[in-house]
């Protein structure tokens, strides 16, 4: 398992361990690759497609968060093509639901918003779909606004893998996909929810928030989830 390999990231030769993903290796060597559905300490699912990279000899772009490194792998993490591609991915996220930063509790502390700013997304070139989506305010401490959910499933994994409660899942397919708590029960009635709030801390946008905070007030402790995993693994 600890077989050492050498890979090239943006031309630089880097020593890595087989089984590590491109994203892990890149981060360890301080190379930035944008990522949204990836969260350190949780399994990787490759859902958001923001971490796409070019691999020499491979015709298609590959997600860095789920692609393991191999000896001799050469990766390009930034190129005009990748920039354009990531921008499209971000715009599609915005077009899919109702993201109104101006009135959002997480504005200024939102990973989606930050990435959009970093990628120069000033407007969205695709028609908005303006879905009518509910807001689940049934939990006494937390609120889930589907309008702001990007279906990254970080909450699903944080709840299942760290808290072990597995309250959350993604139900439905395609544009009908929705985050659901406990077989579509309102969150406040989910008996397996321990109200630990890890899902809220894991959420990259304002979709999950503590109740009572006004616009721009919901800051999250991003490292909580990752730190819990590393404590458990004793590293």
């Amino acid at each position, binding site marked *: 398992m600890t077989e050492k390999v050498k890979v090239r990231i943006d031309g630089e030769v880097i020593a890595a361990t087989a089984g590590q993903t491109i994203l892990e290796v890149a981060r360890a060597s301080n190379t930035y690759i944008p990522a949204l559905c990836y969260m350190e300490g949780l399994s990787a699912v490759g859902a958001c497609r923001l971490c796409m990279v070019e691999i020499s000899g491979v015709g298609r772009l590959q997600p860095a968060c789920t692609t393991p490194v191999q000896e001799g792998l050469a990766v390009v993490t930034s190129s005009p093509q990748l920039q354009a591609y990531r921008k499209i991915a971000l715009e599609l996220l915005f077009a899919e639901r109702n993201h109104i930063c101006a*009135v959002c509790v997480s504005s200024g502390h939102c990973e989606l918003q930050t990435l959009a700013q970093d990628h120069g997304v000033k407007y969205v070139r695709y028609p908005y779909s303006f879905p009518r989506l509910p807001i689940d305010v049934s939990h006494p401490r937390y609120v889930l606004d589907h309008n702001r959910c990007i279906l990254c499933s970080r909450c699903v994994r944080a709840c299942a893998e760290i808290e072990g409660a597995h309250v959350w899942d993604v139900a439905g397919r395609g544009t009908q996909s929705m985050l659901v708590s406990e077989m579509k029960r309102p969150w406040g009635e989910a008996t397996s929810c321990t109200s630990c709030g890890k899902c809220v801390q894991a959420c990259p946008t304002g979709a999950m928030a503590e109740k009572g905070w006004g616009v721009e007030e919901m800051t999250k402790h991003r490292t909580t989830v990752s730190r819990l995993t590393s404590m458990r693994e004793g590293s």
Partner: protein
Amino acid sequence: MTRITIDHVTRIEGHGRITIQLDDMGKVCDARFHVTQIRGFEKFTEGRPYYEMPSITSRICGICPVSHLLASVKACDEIMAVRVPSAAAKLRELLHCAQIVQSHALSFFHLSAPDLLLGMDADPARRNIAGLLEEHPDALRDGIALRKFGQQTIERLARERVHPSWTVPGGVNAPLDPQAREKTLAELPAAAAVVQRTLAMWKKTVDGFPNEIDAFSNFPTMYLGLVGPDGALRLYDGNLRFVGSDGAIVADQIRPQDYASYIGEASLPDSYLKAPYYRPAGYPDGIYRVGPLARLNVADRCGTPDADAELAEFRERYGRIVQSGFHYHYARLIEATYALERMQQLLDDPAILDTKVRAHAGVNSSEGIGVIEAPRGTLIHHYRVDDNGAITWANLIVATGHNNLAIGRGVLQVAQRFVDGNKIQEGALNRVSALVRAYDPCLSCSTHALGLVPLVLELRGPDGQVLDELATP
């Protein structure tokens, strides 16, 4: 039947239009003020957590976001059933006063001064900020400085000029920075001097507008405004009072929570703006006005020395109850005096620096009503929530709404005087829109700020054929 329509083409949400109806003899027989705004607001906030209402509702208007914020957080305070810490209440009032100052400066100098200082019949090409710069550069500079003072105070308090997120249900989210207090205190005297100068100038100028004073909504109505327990002017907090056109108090010390027993809302067929009326008098007899002039008519006194002296002089000139809508301008300057004095009082109080500024609570009441005196008049936010705090129903009554009936009646009065026959003079067109601007409704004003009033006045025959057309260049 011939119809003249004035279209305000504006870039902001809300769209105003004036229709003047001529009878077969070519005489004005009716006039209407139509508005399209805030449609569907109640619908799209349904299901949202109540504490998001301040940020959402403050987006209704880009000119007075602080007013909506404050009315909204007050409604939310009630849903939480908390008492806002006293420093927070002071800070909110301070923010509100700064907003009043900047808004009144905008209305007086930027929007109305071209008409007021250059004259209603001045060449439209020069009746704008540029013309003002040539002929009254000092007044223009004063206006800009006063507005800037208000804006900067808001920015210093809320760290944001537009749509501040500092004001939250339960209080404010950060205490006052002692440096911001020092800076604002240091700038206050200069701002007060601007208002004094402007008042002195206006007192010399105002009587040069006898026709406008005579014809701008110069008719009896009731007036509505907030007053303190002592009957003095209140802007941030107080109880509602109605006075009649003769100065008699019609209803007094109405708790904001009881507003619905006194204010009814009629839906008009040709406007999205509902027409509120004083319920006991019925519709449309219950016509009343709000805003700076109404507040001065309603209050026994201002409660600060300089403003009270100005108010006494104002009443000496025009009587205890001042009916002409043209005097909204004068009233704005008196209120700016009051707001600056009030800011001084609030900032002088060391308790304003207290760091306990926010009460936290969940949903403790299923209903919340917040009322404040916005720059343009009484603003009411009324929400109902379910047990989890999701909005189930919302109602907003904005200042321009309260004045709806009075503006319509005022337009008719002006039109009867200045529009005659099938020909329209530019001065007449401008007077009609100047009347609307005297009320400073939050539509149509932003375009005028640039000195461009894209108004179209159409004269149509019964068959729809355009007989005459006049457009501002």
